[in-house]
């Protein structure tokens, strides 16, 4: 039995898909989310095998959501859309699976059969043949570039534009994103952010936006401290100082 999570902003569309999946008898629906911000923590928490993902959703589209997921822990993604010419063309091109609304039960069953087959194969011989079969492509190829970092602030949701973010700090409470006066906790991992945002690692627990560096204070013992444009201080560890200098073309 495979597990699935449904992400769609329309309650009736979610219900319809849930009923169809339940009727198939081979999928356990772990939950439903109304938008990407709800989906991010749910995906991290529930770790579904399959993600049924609507494309047009408020603020963060399905394609942007894919870009926010950790590429190394990506579930199988089945895009679900009413009509989206360009996305559909991209899906065909990259051999990604998709369903059209209203969903045809027979077509859904074919997708599920393929996913079940794929799951069985992965257990026995990981990474075997069938490279161009639908559903076998890498969803990262159609992912939209990261523009904002979605965060939970004090009783509110923040979408912090990438260019305004000064640094990201990971501690026990989670990953804190700081942009001037505004800050929030994000579901995105430091590894995902480092890969997608162009931010630089300056410490095991810190990611730095190079465009927001005001000055670098060199300290004793090969340590340093970066002062950001917003006046925040970010530590630079011995291990990351050299790569940081290289990145910024400082001798």
């Amino acid at each position, binding site marked *: 039995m495979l597990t699935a999570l449904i992400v769609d*902003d*329309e*309650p*009736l*569309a979610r*219900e*319809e898909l849930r*009923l169809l999946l339940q009727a198939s008898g081979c999928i356990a629906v772990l939950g439903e989310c109304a*938008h990407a*911000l709800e989906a991010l923590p749910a995906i991290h928490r529930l770790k579904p095998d399959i993600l049924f993902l609507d494309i*047009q959703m*408020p*603020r963060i589209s399905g394609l942007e959501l894919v870009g926010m997921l950790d590429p190394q822990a990506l579930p199988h993604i089945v895009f679900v859309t*009413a*009509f*989206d010419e360009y996305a559909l063309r991209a899906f065909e091109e990259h051999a990604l699976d998709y369903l*059209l*609304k*209203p*969903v045809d039960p027979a077509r859904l069953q074919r997708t599920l059969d393929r996913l079940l087959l794929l799951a069985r194969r992965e257990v026995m011989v990981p990474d075997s043949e069938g490279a161009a079969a639908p559903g076998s492509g890498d969803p990262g190829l159609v992912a939209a570039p990261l523009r904002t970092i979605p965060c939970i602030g004090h009783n509110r*949701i923040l979408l912090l534009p990438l260019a305004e973010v000064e640094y990201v700090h990971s501690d026990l409470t989670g990953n804190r994103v700081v942009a001037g006066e505004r800050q929030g906790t994000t579901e995105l991992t430091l590894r995902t952010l480092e890969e997608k945002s162009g931010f630089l690692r300056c410490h095991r627990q810190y990611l730095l936006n190079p465009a927001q560096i005001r000055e670098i204070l060199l300290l004793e013992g090969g340590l340093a401290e970066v002062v950001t444009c917003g006046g925040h201080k970010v530590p630079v560890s011995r291990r990351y100082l050299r790569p940081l200098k290289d990145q910024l073309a400082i001798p």
Partner: protein
Amino acid sequence: MGMEQLSLVISLFQQLCVYLVIAWLLSKTPLFMPLTQVTLSLPHKLVCYLIFSTFCILGTYFGLRIENSIANTRAIGAVLGGIVGGPAVGLLVGLTGGLHRYSLGGFTALACMFSTVAEGLLGGLVHRHFVARRRLDRLFNPWMVAAVAFVAELLQMSIILLVARPLADAWHLVQNIAAPMLVANTLGAAMFMGMILDRRAMLEKYSVAFSARALKIAERAMGVLDQGFTQQTCGQMARILYEETGVGAVAITDCHQLLAFIGIGEDHHLPGTPITSPHTFAAISRNEVVYADGNLIPYSCTLHPGCKLGSSLVIPLRGEEGQVVGTIKLYEPKRKLFSSMNRTLGEGIARLLSGQILSGKYNEQKRLLAQGEIKLLQAQINPHFLFNALNTLSAVIRRDPEQARTLVQHLSTFFRKNLKRQSDEVSLRDELEHVQAYLQIEQARFADHLSVQWQIPEALLECRLLAFSLQPVVENAIKHGISQMLEPGCLTLAAEVREDYLQLVVSDNAGLYQPPADKCGLGMNIVDRRIKARYGEQYGVRVECEPGLLTRVIISLPLTEVLC
């Protein structure tokens, strides 16, 4: 005055007649043109000098030899040269005529040379006098010219008496020739000027008639071909040209077939039949005017041996980039000549029609573009909305068949309104039905995520507005506003009368409006342009936005309430 003198007057008159006939013949040539008006341009002055010098010399030759001297009409050329051409021309004409006379010899040779120069100068001074006082009409007055010529002759007689020696001979000569020369020169100069005046009057009459006719054609023809270059519009146009030009027949063709034919021979020159005339083919392929006058270039009708038409003028009609799009043909029957006026007019008409055809094409394209934009607007609504609506319907059928039926009703209302809009203007009630059907479906889709408030006074429901001016704006508010909200959204629709216009307000609490630059503003942009094009620049669509809180789209329209 004795018999001898009378016969001298008559002989001199006979000479004068030949002289004037030559002048009359010359007045029929374009050479005479510069003489009909006072000009300052050098080439015209040169022509003036050459003509009057010639007449000055002719005057001498047409003179009668009397007692080793010549009774003549030389003064006419000199005086008129001065009057028409000014002092410099007068002086030169006098000098030329005088030197010529001097070369012929005789005891008055020197006196005659001086007097001719003086006559030219006298004319020139009169010219300067009237030009300075801006009395050009006086300059061309035959009576005035007669007076000047009379004075000039008196001057000549005095000079002969002063200069020619022996004085006794001179005195005797003057007694003989004074009377005939005074009369002949005075009359001759006046008649010469009369001819100049005639010529001028004719030119003016011709050009007045020409412009009047051209303007009348232009006025009647205005806008006919704007509606397209078809058999019907060309028929109308040909009728106008036939009536206004008075030619035997008028035809209009495109590059392949006859579109219209009015006049002699219309029984066998039938619109819709292919072109057969070689002249028309020549005009089309060479892109130039072809004139078959019936004499040098024979014309014969290719359709019917008994056709009465005898000559034809084919002028190409030019469209974009000067390419031939057709021809206009004027015909005259056999035994009637083409007036040059109609030929010139024909070419002017062809230019006029070419312009109309071009602007007609342009209008057509504009209209198609506008239609295309409406189609685009309709198409924009379709796919995403349609499939989501069907998906919603599919879920609703399962839970509540009764609600599903209602939803199907809304969906069909929406699409019917979408398809039916051929008439451009609708009532607010009608447009709101469209919006309502749309919103009912969206409310089913988003459930409690979308609430709608209506603030439309009953009294305004019959106001007229352009179809599709509210629905796209509401759709934008849902698509780019409320459907992008993470929390529930509220849409408000309001209508109110402000001063003398109607204001429709669509507001949402998303506040996510981004000033265009991309496609998301397209629908609203088209609405704005359509309203401005229809009702004027003071109306249209404007947007107010408080980021994160509110977007308000305000549509202003003229207040055109129907009170029945």
